[in-house]
């Protein structure tokens, strides 16, 4: 058993499952947005605001942001543990990724709920 403290989950299975489920969430969101742009020839401010005022879409966006943050954390943590060998540099990089993920997520929540 290998212990790690900077990973998102506390087990390999936990991270692995989150990575896959969040990938499905991200893909669904991207497909939805693709569909939205394809069916709306010109998206003006009113249409954009109407979309984001819908509570269901707000929740969908929130779940997407959770998925994106978790996906980035797990993915970049894996990249760092593969390629960055000096422990100090790895710790700084991992911390930066975690702080950025949390910040973007909180900022995203604020943006969505201000509409």
């Amino acid at each position, binding site marked *: 058993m290998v212990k790690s403290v900077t990973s998102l989950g506390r*087990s390999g299975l936990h991270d692995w499952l989150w990575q896959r489920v969040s990938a499905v969430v991200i893909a669904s969101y991207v497909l939805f947005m693709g569909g939205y742009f394809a069916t709306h020839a010109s998206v003006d401010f009113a249409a954009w605001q109407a979309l984001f005022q819908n509570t269901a879409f707000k929740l969908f966006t929130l779940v997407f942001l959770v998925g994106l943050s978790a996906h980035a954390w797990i993915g970049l943590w894996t990249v760092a*543990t593969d*390629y960055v060998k000096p422990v100090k540099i790895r710790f700084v990089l991992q911390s930066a990724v975690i702080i950025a993920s949390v910040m973007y997520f909180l900022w995203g929540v604020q943006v969505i709920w201000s509409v």
Partner: protein
Amino acid sequence: MRFSIYRYNPDVDKEPYMQEFQLEIPAGKDMMLLEALLLLKEQDATLTFRRSCREGVCGSDGMNINGKNGLACITHVSELSEPVVVRPLPGLPVIRDLVVDMALFYKQYERIKPFLQNKNAAPAKERLQSPEDREKLEGLWECILCACCSTSCPSFWWNPEKFVGPAGLLQAYRFLADSRDTATDERLDDLDDSFSVFRCRTIMNCVNVCPKGLNPTKAIGKIRSMLLERGV
């Protein structure tokens, strides 16, 4: 036939270098790479490599042949393009020429406890297994631990002290799948971290190089499924 062989003797050489060799192979005659290496050793007696059974059973002569890991004793020279570039297995420390230090590879093998564990009292004669249960071990027990798979795996190159590697995981599943083994939970506990099993990115280099035609990626998938079934 032209050969380019990795040479390094830490007592004498500052750094590794490639040495060119020429070997006359009579027209219409074929031989295994190991036989060619033995003939080259007659030209230069300092050329060092491991070999034993010379028939693909002992797993001693794993090496990197024209960029792909394999066993010299079951690789026909007629299949190889010239010059035949022979290097030691990648990712492990070189002791000398084509001989690598397998300590990390064996450490990972040891970690998965490659022996049958059974808490129940031993029967008078032997622990029986149905033909169907025995069938589940096919494609697992045949591994000869030549290290061709693990040393072709980037995840093992980057984290050889944390990732068990394809060879070790194939053996881990060999005991997880064995109906006579009762330590399934303990074995799965030892593997459920971010490195031991889950560092596999399913690139399947292991399947591509295995000289015995085994499929470690499939075994790793089965371990993941067992962990998932237990954890969901």
